[in-house]
């Protein structure tokens, strides 16, 4: 098996068609689902997209399906809860805007940095020793790590759904025609889009971003060119996990609750999103995240909510079999 040839940039051929396709897709779903459901799907999609980025970045660089990633996301919701309730001492909505901004900055900073650190620790102790082992080994370890995280959280916070104070007031909203658009949803989508844009710029424009891309293409050659491979891989885990952390904060803000089993389902869906978009491709992961959310919300809008998970996995299987390169394509896929 040669080293990864994954690119983390959008392939040139689809770059021009992509915005058009997305616009057409959004218009169609808006028409089918109606504004309320459309906003729901967009918000859910933002969360999936943020998680999917972590999967796709890690897969792009070391070709490992990081099963623990969904649980890092789950753990981050609890870190966010802890930060809101204990560090900030909040138990309800924050009505004053300056206070809210400060609180949000603190929650995002604390959660993202702690989760980033967790990602680095997991990589260092669970995955790095197995980098040259048979492919099955790190995969099995990843499943083990996922289970350990899940149960640490279960011990600490119990198996039931825990409610978390929603610090962005739900009452803040404006009307578009008949539908009420909460500021909260807008904030969630905007935050996700900004993070994704920053990530895209980071990977495309900075020296470190270039190191990540070359490492994904050919690890040995990059090492010969003076790239510190271990540092680059560590950084990938740091960023991916921090993004999962951000997704966790968004989840808590939006849903106002969390549970220890959250990571498994969300992780699987986010992974599906990454595959859908073309694994190894960050723009694709974002696109896939929104797509999955639309499929899921669409299914429940038409009364098939209980089948939502099943539909998503069926989609995953269909994509893996017929188009393993995903929608946006990436050279990693053809060796799938």
């Amino acid at each position: 098996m040669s080293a990864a040839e994954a690119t983390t940039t959008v392939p040139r051929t689809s770059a021009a068609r992509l915005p058009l396709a997305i616009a057409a897709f959004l218009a169609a779903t808006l028409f089918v689902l109606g504004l309320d459901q459309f906003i729901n799907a967009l918000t859910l999609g933002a969360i999936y997209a943020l998680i999917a980025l972590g999967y796709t970045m890690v897969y792009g660089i070391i070709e490992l399906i990081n099963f623990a990633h969904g649980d890092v996301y789950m753990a981050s919701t609890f870190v966010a809860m802890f930060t809101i309730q204990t560090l900030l001492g909040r138990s309800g909505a924050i009505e004053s805007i300056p206070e809210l901004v400060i609180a949000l900055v603190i929650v995002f900073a604390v959660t993202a940095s702690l989760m980033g650190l967790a990602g680095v620790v997991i990589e260092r102790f669970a995955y790095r020793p197995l980098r040259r082992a048979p492919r099955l080994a790190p995969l099995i370890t990843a499943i083990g790590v996922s289970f350990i995280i899940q149960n640490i959280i279960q011990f600490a916070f119990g198996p039931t759904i825990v409610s978390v104070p929603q610090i962005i007031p739900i009452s803040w909203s404006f009307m578009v025609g008949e539908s009420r658009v909460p500021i909260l949803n807008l904030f969630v989508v905007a935050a996700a889009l900004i993070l994704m844009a920053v990530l895209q710029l980071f990977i495309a424009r900075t020296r470190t971003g270039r190191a990540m891309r070359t490492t994904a293409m050919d690890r040995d050659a990059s090492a010969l060119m003076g790239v510190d491979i271990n540092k680059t891989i560590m950084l990938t885990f740091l960023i991916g996990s921090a993004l999962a952390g951000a997704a966790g904060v968004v989840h808590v803000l939006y849903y106002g609750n969390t549970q220890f089993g959250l990571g498994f389902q969300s992780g699987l869906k986010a992974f599906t999103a990454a595959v859908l978009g073309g694994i190894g491709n960050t723009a694709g992961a974002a696109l896939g995240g929104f797509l999955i959310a639309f499929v899921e919300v669409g299914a429940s809008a038409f009364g098939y909510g209980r089948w939502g998970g099943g539909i998503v996995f069926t989609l995953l299987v269909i994509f893996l079999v017929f188009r393993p390169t995903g929608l946006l394509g990436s050279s990693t896929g053809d060796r799938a």
Partner: protein
Amino acid sequence: MMARISARFDPSRAFFARHRSLGILVGVSVLGILLPLITRIPPFDGIQSTNAWVNAFTTATIYAVLAIGLNVVVGFAGLLDLGYAAFFALGGYTYALVASPFSGLAFPFWPMLIAGAIVGAIFGVLLGAPTLRLRGDYLAIVTLGFGEIVPITLLNADKFTNGTNGLGGIDKPSIPGILQFTLTNPWPMYVLVLLIFAAIAMIVFRLEDSRVGRTWDAIREDELAAESAGINTVIAKLQAFAVGASIAGIIGVVNAAKITIVAPDQFRFIVSISTLAAVVLGGMGNTIGVATGAFVIYLFQSILLKQLNTLVENFSIPILSEIDFLDFQYVLYGIVLVVMMLRRPQGIFPARRRKRTFDDQKRSE
């Protein structure tokens, strides 16, 4: 080394090395008699009645068979199947649908063993045919998805499966005119499960040494090289998948007949993971090793952890009595997977052939 030397001088070992199927039969019979006897002596007799012990051994053996089946897929062919419980579920539902009050049918148990195997194999091939072309880790995800889809379907297709409540009152096996299996007498089921275990272990041992088994070895070690050597890798992988799935199907039928109820919640991801943990613990590729792993893991969680609970409750130790030690089993699986992979990837009982692989790797590093 010691084992190899003693094998040369110990005539009984040499005999069983040549007649392995007979060896399995003897081993299973000896253990099958010894285990219930051991439970009669202290401290084991204080934990639960002999019947309860025998019941626990039966379930542990069912898990051991599951582990043997998963080992064909993971250990022999090197394909990570994370949805193995799905085939177990399909076997169980196959029997439940034709032998429970829900459908009103009352098919006999014995032919359903074969039906379970066939259903398992069919679904194994259905899932495998399109997906086995994928690379290993994608296959893991697809099987994981399949493992989710099956319980979701069983849960939601309540017209056919009775949804959450599952299918209860499943017929127990009987030998007409001679023996009717009952819930109160665990012994016939115990013997039946041991016999099935022995039969499947014999078949798997023979498969391992057959042409197919060697093909699996080749694919696991280097798929590209195997393909260049003229092996049709997709067919060989399908065979592994089908064999693994049909073993799960058979034991699914037995499991349904034993506990007389099947419900979607019995076949969650955790079942696949605990079976995988057993395979990893016992040593991927070693049939007896993985069976031992499963047996030990099951007894550990169902007896030892439960005992810890009652012990702590009895002494009313303040903080500890708040903890349900049964919850620890999940952490346990996680730790087993991580620690084994990092420290002893070949498992506690390394398979002969796999051991060489890991040695080679060490040398090349």
